[in-house]
């Protein structure tokens, strides 16, 4: 099958599914097919990589030169990116074919993909339910088999949580591994680009292309190149996880976690033990503080990053205003949605005179305490597992009235962003409403290969990751 054939088929599938799912924003069939033709030529010439000709979708927070890049916001409704993000460049160099930009919570602020100015994304498993967020469009697109690979960004869980709620694999690499150049900034010390795919192995393949030093991002790490597939290729034998110590924090199980979720995750851990791993009971003190700490630090950074949206150089500008200050105020009132405004206000408050020490600095101190807790844990185990989210997907509108209810979806994911360490979410079952449940596997800094390998061996012994939404299975049968 040629890239043109594969790409055309997927574009048709997207056309049919998108009115229902609203997973995609900008699309350009002609441009996409031109890339597919170029990929076919490259495949014929023998200069191809493993990713050449494979369709990919990029979360709309990533700049893609010449394509509309909206971040799910009215502020950037008509904004066409003048340059591409590093991770976009890398996947383009590898020969991937861009099929479109995916819908998301506005400026990556959300856990359900409901705050997009362009309407919510719906779960391919049940259209009344959310796909998770903020990278819900990317997660839904992979779950609905509209594209085999997609990119997302994870600031508080925005790759892992939608991966869990949509039944796909989503990886948050170590902070600094993938350059943030061209990633429209939400919280600069947390934002992390990463891949979505159907398998951990595909995530590793994508990470190989996406990771790398970039002098244009001052927080980009300069480290020797790694092959994230290397452990996956090794012969496993009957006990491929022999010697692996799997940490199970008591704070991740019990109260606050839905019964179906806990049952599925415990079953997954039993499978890891079958594969040779041993479990270690742990406690992670201060983990319950991770959510309030995150909701001080991330909004603070956001209030600074989003100050650039003022109607002067790009994006929305109010039509009517009395003077410059009024232009700023009206532009930002019109351009931003309610959740984005709330977070900017919270951030402005905690950074303001008289409050900085009590809130922002305090939160940074707690960030170190939480990080120290994880460092101590990793002396006793190799990976830490638990549910990615406390429940499976919820219905659209169920949590939009109370911001704090929405924030509590991030309870198991935010710590990974506070400490910067890698984590993956993979499918491990379904709840009583037949909605997907995700297992989160966390590792210490730079342990991507280890967590990918654990996920891969689990996927060789189970088939949760191969389950598909009813519509997709039905289409396959036709």
């Amino acid at each position, binding site marked *: 099958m040629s890239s043109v054939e594969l790409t055309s088929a997927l574009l048709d599938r997207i056309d049919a599914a998108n009115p229902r799912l609203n997973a995609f924003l900008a699309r350009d069939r002609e441009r996409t097919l031109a890339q597919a033709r170029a990929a076919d030529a490259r495949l014929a010439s023998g200069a191809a990589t493993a990713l050449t000709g494979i369709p990919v979708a990029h979360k709309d927070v990533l700049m893609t030169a010449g394509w509309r890049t909206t971040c799910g916001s009215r502020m950037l409704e008509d904004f066409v990116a003048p340059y591409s993000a590093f991770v976009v460049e890398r996947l383009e160099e590898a020969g991937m074919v861009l099929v479109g930009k995916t819908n998301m919570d506005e400026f990556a602020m959300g856990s359900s993909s409901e705050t997009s100015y362009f309407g919510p994304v719906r779960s391919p498993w049940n259209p009344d339910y959310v796909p998770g967020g903020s990278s819900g469009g990317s997660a839904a697109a992979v779950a609905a088999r509209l594209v085999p690979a997609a990119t997302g960004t994870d600031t508080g869980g925005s790759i892992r949580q939608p991966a869990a709620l949509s039944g796909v694999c989503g990886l948050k690499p170590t902070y*600094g591994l993938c350059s943030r150049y061209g990633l429209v900034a939400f919280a600069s010390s947390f934002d992390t680009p990463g891949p979505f795919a159907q398998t951990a192995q595909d995530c590793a393949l994508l990470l190989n292309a996406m990771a790398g030093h970039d002098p244009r991002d001052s927080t980009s*790490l300069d480290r020797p190149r790694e092959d994230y597939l290397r452990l996956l290729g090794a012969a496993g034998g009957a006990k491929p996880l022999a010697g692996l110590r799997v940490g199970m924090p008591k704070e991740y199980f019990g109260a606050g976690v839905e019964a179906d979720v806990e049952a599925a995750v415990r079953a997954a851990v039993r499978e890891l033990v079958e594969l040779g791993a041993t479990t270690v009971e742990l406690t992670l003190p201060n983990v319950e*503080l991770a959510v309030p700490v995150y909701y001080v630090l991330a909004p603070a950074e956001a209030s600074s990053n989003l100050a650039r949206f003022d109607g002067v*150089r790009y*994006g929305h*500008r109010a039509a009517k205003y009395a003077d410059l200050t009024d232009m700023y105020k009206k532009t930002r009132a019109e351009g931003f949605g309610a959740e984005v405004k709330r977070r900017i206000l919270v951030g*402005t408050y905690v950074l303001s005179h008289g409050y900085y020490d009590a809130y922002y600095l305090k939160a*940074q*101190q707690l960030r170190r305490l939480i990080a120290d807790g994880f460092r101590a844990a990793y002396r006793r185990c190799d990976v830490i597992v638990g549910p990615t989210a406390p429940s499976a997907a919820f219905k659209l509108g169920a949590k939009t009235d109370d911001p704090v209810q929405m924030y509590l979806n991030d309870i198991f994911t935010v710590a990974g962003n506070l400490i*910067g360490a890698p984590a993956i979410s993979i499918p491990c079952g379904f709840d009583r409403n037949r909605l997907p449940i995700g297992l989160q596997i966390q590792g210490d800094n730079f342990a991507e290969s280890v967590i990918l390998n654990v996920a891969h061996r689990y996927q060789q012994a189970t088939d949760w990751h191969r389950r598909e939404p009813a519509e997709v299975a039905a289409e396959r049968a036709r």
Partner: protein
Amino acid sequence: MALSSGDVQRIAHLARIEITPEEAAEVEAKLAGIFALIEKMRGVDTTGIVPMAHAQDVALPLRDDVVTEDDRHELYQGVAPAVQSGLYLVPKVVE
């Protein structure tokens, strides 16, 4: 951390976001909930703990002070709401 409507207007001004009197009540109520969440972290003793600003302990990389970028004026200003002679147009500030 009880918020007053004066607080909301002050922060809105700092953030350069217009909040109308009609919106203010709802904004205040939703913010109150968020601040109640944040209050939970205040009771923990953090004496002597060095703040963690960044996920990785790295120093800001430096480079040689030479010109490396080319002129992309047209490209970057192509997306602007209003430009003239390479300058961004905004309402007059100084009379």
